[in-house]
Every structure is written in C-alpha cells, then in structure tokens.
C-alpha cells in the first residue's frame, strides 16, 4: 500500500512540469485515480501522454499499485474536465473527487 504523495512524486519524475492530483479511491492504497495536468501534453495523443507517465509507473504495477486510472490533460482541458472519477468497484457509479487545486481557492 502506498500514499497519494508517493504516487504524485513518482509521476513528477516522468512529467516534471505537471500538476499531479492522486486520489486513493478506496483508502486501500492500491486503487488510484490520478490527474496529470501539464502544458507539455499539448499536441500529444492520449496514449503518448500515458506512455510518458507509465514509463515510470509500470514498474509499480500490479504491485503495489493494483489499479491506475490516469487522466492526462493540458491545463485548458483541465478547465473543462468534470469532478467525477471512475471507481472500478463502484458498480458503474462515479466517485465525486475532491479537487485539491479547487479547494485551495
């Protein structure tokens, strides 16, 4: 089991200019929804963005990270993105996430 702070630090190794928000979906330390927001994603396809992040993260899958739901966005996309994270064990229901950045405002 790992902490969201650790996930965020690992993602930053892959995308240093990113703003990273990791959410521990079940407070179990192994199912995470991670939003990675970076200017440098502009002009890249979704898979290219994820491959950048996964280059660092894949060594941690499936242990200690069992599920990693990645959302890689540019700042412009993040502006219009919703606040609902997908929960793989939520019976199809989304989980309303606490947006760290928004709460600071």
């Amino acid at each position, binding site marked *: 089991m790992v902490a969201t702070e650790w996930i965020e630090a690992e993602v930053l190794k892959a995308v240093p200019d990113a703003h990273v928000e990791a959410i521990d979906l079940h407070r179990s330390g192994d199912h995470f929804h991670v939003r990675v927001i970076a200017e440098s994603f502009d002009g890249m396809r979704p898979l290219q963005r994820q491959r950048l992040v996964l280059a660092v993260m894949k060594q941690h899958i499936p242990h200690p990270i069992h599920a990693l*739901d990645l959302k890689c966005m540019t700042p412009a996309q993040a502006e219009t993105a919703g606040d609902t994270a997908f929960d793989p064990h939520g019976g199809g229901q989304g989980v309303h996430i606490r947006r760290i950045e928004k709460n600071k405002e």
Partner: protein
Amino acid sequence: MKMNWTPEELQAIVDEHALVLFMKGTPNEPQCGFSNRAAQALQQFGEPFAAVNILSDQRAIPSVCAWSDFPTMPQIYVQGELIGGSDIVLEMLQDGSLQEMFDEGRSA
C-alpha cells in the same frame, strides 16, 4: 481457439479485427470495473468488436503486456493500433476521435 499468446498470434487478432478489446472477463460477464467500462464504451460506439478474455489463460496478461509494452488491462486496439485503456477509449468516444480513427482505416 487454441492460443499460445505469441506476438504473431496477438498481431493476427488485431490485424483481423478493426476493433479489439483485451479484457478481464467478457462483455456480458466482465471481471473488472475498468474492463466493463471499456466494453460499455465500445458497445455504445456501436461497431462490432472482438473481445479477448485474458483471464482465460494465466499466460495471457504477461504475454499481451510484453507484446504491447502497456502495463494494464483492458487494452483497446483500433485498426491494429493500441489506443490505450478504458480511460482513453471513453475520452476518444466522447470527443469523436475514436470515430475518426475508425473511419480512417489502417495506415499502410
């Protein structure tokens, strides 16, 4: 179908079908929330797709992940090309780029 999950066999599957979903379980009986989400996205898309249950054989996950160099399941292939997992297929369904990529066909 007797599968040995070799790169050649896996390539043949994505060569043969315009849409392929490697998933945990089947579209009717998904064994993982992410796989279910991906299957639902493709069902919503409306084109026929081939679903491969990678829980049917314990060799499947390591073989597919090594072949694609992508660490998680599900994996979705459009016109032979990996687009990513359930988060990306949903994003591409919603923004129309899945339709675009499907319509463009295979790059020569």
